[in-house]
């Protein structure tokens, strides 16, 4: 066998094509490009929303108009022209109220390509899926099974109709409209997303899953996810995303809000695989996402993310540890290749006593990509005995990529214990030598090392999703894994 070296791996990485870059020819209804109050009213009307929702959106739009695009992230990209985006696009034939058999066969074909065909999912045990294509939710599975337990899992547009009180009570409480530029934009124009409510004391029997896909060109995707875990409940939530390969940059600005009430636990896993652009850095999705969860007493929120896609990622899944004894976790693998740029990390805000947070972030940069970790650990004066452990490791492949860390650590309490460590290195010659010496060839050795490097995070993914995440990692780093 010919010798497989790191250079070969790098070569493979650079030429690796985006497997999900297909475009499905769906008959879609798309709004004219541009953004103004009329468009927002039209979106709201399309969704048949109550008046409070329309007002909420308009309020957010007015706030957004006053805001400026943030510049602080360590990424460079052409600023999106917000007037050149269509804010609503829906596959025409898809009707969420019909059974699966009525779904556009082309849609089903697309899901098959995504590797999450609904048939397959049905066979897989216990994963309920809500699929959002372009801007609307097209299919939700296992609705009845969940309803028996009193679990609400449906597109947020339906939830606004059916459970307006719940949505009204929680939406915007964790990520307010004023939070940041993209959150305000999302609040104004979001067209769909998932809503999930787990009642008191219920342990959700299956993984809940949402699939997002941008299909239409010239559109942006603005989905909004709201997960509420009532007292003593548990839910594990999965999220995946893909987009067709296009020359243009598409905008994805999502908001995810998690609310873990007393003693509840939410596990939120993301496999993000938006189109990263081709190997010359052309096209790709701009992924500007605001994700935040609030933990009440004794509750726990755990974020796990595998970030392999998007041309530009700007994403900080955060935890506000408000209640005493609450726990926040963040596990992340961010892989960047070619001209991808990722600025990702987390914020752990310790407000309650005995709060704990763990941050494990692994960055792998290849090609000409830039990978940044940006994190904040903040210990409030009232947060007695707060505990944080952070670790961010970067692996560099090739000498044209960059790895950066920007951790902010702020402590106002003397009883807090905070540890932060970061390392940056390439795959060590000594590590490879050690493996070779024991009869493991270089290809396997690289696989072993990359696997070992990411393992801490991969292990945190739910079983059903781990297979998929492995697959995505393979796509991004094919030749090195497996």
């Amino acid at each position, binding site marked *: 066998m010919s010798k497989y070296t790191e250079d070969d791996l790098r070569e493979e990485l650079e030429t690796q094509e985006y497997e999900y870059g297909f475009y499905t020819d769906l008959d879609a209804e798309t709004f004219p490009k541009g953004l103004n109050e009329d468009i927002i009213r039209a979106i709201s009307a399309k969704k048949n929303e109550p008046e409070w929702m329309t007002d909420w959106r308009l309020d957010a739009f007015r706030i957004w108009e006053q805001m400026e695009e943030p510049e*602080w992230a360590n990424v460079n990209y052409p600023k999106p022209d917000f007037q050149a985006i269509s804010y609503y696009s829906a596959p025409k034939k898809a009707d969420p109220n019909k059974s699966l058999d009525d779904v556009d066969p082309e849609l089903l074909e697309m899901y098959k390509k995504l590797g999450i065909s609904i048939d397959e999912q049905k066979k897989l045990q216990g994963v309920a899926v809500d699929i959002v294509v372009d801007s609307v939710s097209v299919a939700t599975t296992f609705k009845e099974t969940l309803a028996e337990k009193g679990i609400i899992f449906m597109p947020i547009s339906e939830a606004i109709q059916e459970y307006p009180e719940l949505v009204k009570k929680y939406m915007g409480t964790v990520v307010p409209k004023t939070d940041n530029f993209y959150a305000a934009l999302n609040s104004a124009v979001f067209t769909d997303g998932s809503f999930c409510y787990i009642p008191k004391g219920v342990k959700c029997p299956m993984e809940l899953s949402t699939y997002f896909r941008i299909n239409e060109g010239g559109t942006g995707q603005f989905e909004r996810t709201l997960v509420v875990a009532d007292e003593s409940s548990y839910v594990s939530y999965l999220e995946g995303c893909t987009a067709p390969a296009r020359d243009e940059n598409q905008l994805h600005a999502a908001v995810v809000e998690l609310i873990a009430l007393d003693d509840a636990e939410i596990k939120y896993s993301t496999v993000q695989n938006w189109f990263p652009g081709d190997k010359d850095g052309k096209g790709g999705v701009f992924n500007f996402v605001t994700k935040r969860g609030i933990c009440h007493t004794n509750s726990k929120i755990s974020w796990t993310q595998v970030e392999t896609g998007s041309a530009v990622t700007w994403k900080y899944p955060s935890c506000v540890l408000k209640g005493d004894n609450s726990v926040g976790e963040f596990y992340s693998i961010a892989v960047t290749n070619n001209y991808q740029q990722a600025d990702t990390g987390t914020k752990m805000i310790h407000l309650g006593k005995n709060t704990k947070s763990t941050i494990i972030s692994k960055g792998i940069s290849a090609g000409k990509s830039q990978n940044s970790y940006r994190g904040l650990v903040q*210990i409030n*004066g009232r947060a007695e005995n707060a505990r944080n452990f952070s670790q961010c490791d*970067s692996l*560099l*492949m*090739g*000498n*044209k*990529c*960059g*790895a*950066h*860390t*920007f*951790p*902010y*650590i*702020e*402590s*106002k*309490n*003397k*009883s*807090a*214990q*905070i*540890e*932060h*460590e*970061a*390392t*940056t*290195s*390439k795959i060590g010659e000594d590590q490879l030598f050690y493996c070779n010496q024991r009869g493991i060839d270089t290809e396997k050795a690289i696989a072993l090392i990359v696997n070992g490097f990411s393992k801490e995070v991969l292990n945190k993914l739910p079983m059903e999703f781990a297979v998929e995440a492995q697959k995505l990692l393979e796509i991004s780093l094919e030749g090195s894994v497996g």
Partner: protein
Amino acid sequence: MSLKDNLISSFMVMENRGKVDLDSGFHQMRSEAINAFEKQGFPTKKDEEWKYTSLNSVLKHDYSIFPKSEAAVEFKEVKKYFVHEIETYKIVFIDGVYSSFLSETTHDGYDICLMSAALKKPKYKMVLDNYFNTIADKENSITNLNTAFTMEGAYINIGKNKVLPKPIQIVNFYTGSEKDILLQPRNLVVVGENSHVQIIERHQSLSDNVVLTNAVTEIFANKRAIVDHYKIQNDNDNASMIDSTYVQQKANSIVSVNTYSFGGKLTRNNVEFFHEGEHIESHINGISILDKKQHVDNHTLIHHKFPNCESFELYKGIFDASSTGVFNGKVIVDQEAQKTNAFQQNNNILIGDKATINAKPQLEIFADDVKCSHGCTIGQLDESAMFYMQSRGIPEKEAKALLLYAFGNEVVEKIKIPELKTRITKLIANKLGVKLGFEI
């Protein structure tokens, strides 16, 4: 009139009164600097580099900018502020004015003298043209302010192949003869190939009057030079300080900058290293022990531009009462700087109920074949260790001091001048309020 306006009009006064030579290229540098300062203004908390440090409390005073009096100070009164146990060269300033009485300068083989003298004499012109203000950060408004008002400071120019027989002490005293005073010493240190220099710098206020020091030091280490710079910051509660030290290193040189911050109201240290050659070693060490409402902000930058260089950074902090510590450690590794080893460590202990620490270690790495790491911890004293000592009859206060001393010892151990090490140890014991029952 705001301090900024006051400074800008003072600059014009300086020009009009003929205090400076208006025709020289040097004056052009001043003008550019004051214009840049006028445009930039004093940094605010909106500035990322000043996110955790507000200058409002120190800028509100009506500072006098040109010290008028030449106060005399008896050596015996200030002896304790010198490392007097050993022979040293001394450059001493009282209220910003050179004190020949307390100083011991030389021109024998190398120049250890005054900036004001160097500015006047043509024979120093070439050195100043080549080095002065070449590495100071032009984006830093406070450094620009210092450049505009450069009058006095230490001028140290060591030629090739000289190993200095004794360290150099640069000591600045403020007598408080004027109510609120702004002092802007400017130091230039040029060390030739294969030469060794040790510098001890101290700023000391002798009264309770308000003083703000804006010091800038540029250090140039040529090939294989070894430079150790020690800064003692143990001033009283009305003294504030902004110190910027810029270091440029050529191949195979070794430079260390060590900062010991025990006092002062507000202290900001900028230490920036720029590499201009291979096989360079850079060391930055610091220890801060603060109480009351003291505030220390350590900002460091190591810019690796060439391959095969190493940097080591170690900062420790102990924060009592309502004190605040800030640490920002930036390491940039350029794409060309392969085989770089960069290590950074920042450990903090919070003792005070209202004490705050804000840390931001920051790595920006563009090269793949590197070993870079940073670690940052914030914690408390080990309760079991405290219990162990107390159960063996060591009182709580001493046990605590012993543990804290041990915590900081790693930094103290790096001091290469034994007498200075003893001095720093005593200062630490003093600060912790105990007599350590052992000699170092």
